[in-house]
């Protein structure tokens, strides 16, 4: 393959009446990623293109997009793996307001994250040195902490698509991360948040988030864990 077509979603609210796609012909290089292809277009053909990027190594969460029908980090997915015929199609994360081209409004993503109190809560005076934690206890949240807050799961979740007050898989993933941490003492506080009207019971275990997550996390499992605990907690209250 010497070249391929990059079909890119375009929308500039300053001048476009409508969203549309624009197709560019890009020279192919073995190993080329979709982010590299976008940068090539930006640098050589069209400086008006807008997209987010930073680390180019799948750790910062900037470049989550919808690439040829799947949630992908543009910096990690290779062109050859995203081809449909001779074309790679790149769109912004679905169900989110488009600011320009591939850049979407992530305000809710951050706000909902903050709502679960995503920090370690432990009001006891800390020891002089580290709080000890066994490797086995540390392993309990080994997956959750890999989240890069890319927003793919949030964008993919049908419960969120109807209602962006729903905390969303990313926020619940972080709630579970602290919930299972042996150093955290705020189980009740967190359960009250996640068991609220906008919390875990809105999850219909559709597993879109698992499919979408580029870090191979399982937010649904985290949510199930919180659901179980929230049920027990609620039943306890009723006693």
């Amino acid at each position, binding site marked *: 393959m010497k070249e391929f077509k990059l079909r890119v979603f375009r929308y500039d609210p300053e001048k476009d009446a409508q969203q549309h796609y624009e197709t560019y012909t890009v020279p192919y290089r073995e190993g080329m990623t979709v982010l590299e292809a976008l940068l090539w277009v*930006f640098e050589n053909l069209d*400086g008006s293109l807008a997209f987010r990027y930073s680390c180019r190594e799948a750790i910062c969460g900037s470049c989550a997009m919808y690439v040829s029908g799947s949630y992908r980090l543009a910096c990690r997915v290779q062109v050859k793996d995203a081809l449909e015929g001779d074309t790679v199609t790149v769109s912004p994360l679905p169900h989110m307001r488009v600011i320009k081209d591939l850049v979407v409004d992530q305000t809710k993503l951050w706000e909902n994250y903050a709502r679960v109190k995503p920090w*370690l809560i432990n009001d006891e005076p800390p020891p002089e040195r580290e709080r000890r934690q066994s490797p086995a206890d540390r392993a309990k949240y080994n997956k959750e902490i890999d989240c890069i807050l890319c927003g793919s799961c949030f964008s993919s979740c049908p419960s969120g698509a109807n209602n962006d007050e729903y905390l969303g898989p990313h926020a619940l993933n972080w709630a579970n991360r602290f919930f299972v941490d042996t150093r955290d003492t705020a189980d009740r506080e967190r359960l009250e948040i996640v068991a609220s009207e906008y919390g875990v019971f809105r999850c219909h275990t559709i597993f879109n988030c698992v499919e979408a997550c580029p870090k191979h996390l399982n937010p649904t499992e985290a949510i199930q864990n919180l659901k179980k605990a929230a049920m027990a907690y609620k039943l306890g209250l009723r006693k």
Partner: protein
Amino acid sequence: MKIKHRVAIVGGGLAGLRAAIAAYDGGVQDVAIISQLPPVRSHSVAAAGGINGSLANHPDGRDDNWEKHAFDTIKGSDYLADQDAAEVLAREAVPVIVETEHWGCPFSRNEDGTIAQRPFGGAGFPRTCYAADKTGHALLHTLYQQVVKRGIKVYTEHLVLTLAVADGRAVGAVVMDIVSGEVGTVEADALLFATGGAGKIYAHSTNNLLNTGLGMAIAYWAGVPLKDMEFIQFHPTGLWGTNILMTEGCRGEGGYLVNNQGERFMARYAPKAMELGPRDIVARSILTEILEGRGFNQGGPGGGYVHLDLRHLGEAKINERLPEVREICKNFAGIDPVYQPIPVQPSQHYTMGGISTDINGATVLKGLYAAGECACVSVHGANRLGGNSLLDTIVFGKLAGQHMARFVAEQPLQGSVDKLLEEKKAEVERRFRELFDNPGTERESALRVELQQNMFHNVGIFRQADTLEAGLAKVRELRERYRNVKVHHTGRIYNMELIRAYELRGMLDVAEAIAAGALARKESRGSHARRDYPERDDQNFLKHTLAFHTPEGVRLDYSPVTITRFQPQARKY
């Protein structure tokens, strides 16, 4: 848009977040962070291997203490670090690391539940605390969580463009909201720059794509000197092709470096430390192997490489300690380090120099502070030890934040600076218009690539007068051609072309400071290796370089190095 806070922190990486927390906890509730990126997307997130502190948790590290850490840091710096600063770095390490643990940082653990530590290059003991090979991610998320907890205001996707200085005091800045394109002003009793490194001035860099050094340039334009800019760290092991970092943790866990003869060639260069020599020495050793014909892909596109071999560590250890390395190799190079050696080459990695500050982060410009990779305290001198940079961000971020809290309480701004801020804003808007209306035909992206190649090849790992002169001349030529850069896209919203063109101007000025400093330093010290002056020359060059901005270009000056307890010795590993 008019932003006004008592303390304004520019940059949401580790240094910026730690400073914001310290200022807030120091009694200034009105702290804001202004950052080009949402904080957790900052470059700090990519740090992998770990953070140094003499916790003495490792069975082989029981005799470790902060003095030994300070000594290793100073020796590693080739005696260019200020020793009082290096002592602070080492002494504060344990408390600041423990503090992040109390905040929930998910460090890997020993069986006894203490924080796990691994060996790193140039260190006498296993001193590097880690969270698998995702330490930066673990730390950055933890600090961001503390910022969210405190409700500290964050302006994300806001780019600071220039400083406003009134009567010798920094009083504010001009900022652009990237999303709307609106240009506005920031007023603050004190500002801190925590804007990160300048790696993208070089080709073959491990840095994220936004590390253009704009913060350094802005301070430099405002009259603050840049210190020791010629000291650029090349990391021994960037993944061949993309230059994504293969953390030093790979060697810390026992990985080998092997040439095309199958030899562990470090035996020739650092017989005792082997693969765990300091970075400058290992990087030069690899390049020497390649230049002398013992690399792979000799003369091929993308340059030569050697092998980083982890296979003998076994799958279990690789999965436990280096999962991200395996993931990156699979995704970006199509190889699995459990079964195949990793092709690596030295890659630009870190800016030892930066905005000159004292131990409190204060610059010579009253009201302006700096911390983290954009700053030079200096603790890394001519060569930074792996694991000391994350530490630098949180030790000196914290000290700077605390100092700012005291400073703004004692010396709040008097009177209005509105008029000055409006003038500065108009200046920026004029610059933008010049870029839009420019009749020239130069493209920002083409100039950028030329600059990066020039710096890598002429102001790179091995240096000498003629190539340095050519490198400096090229930077100056590019600066002339920059006058003809045209920005074609004139929209306001998320205009990346405009931002990149603006950044390029800063990159060119910072590049000039690097190249001029390198040409003038006629000795070899740490990362600065001159073929024409292969020895360290303490007689003439045991001093810091200071680069000042003038309308004609860079002006160099020097300042003494602080020596407290360790007299300079030859550096052997």
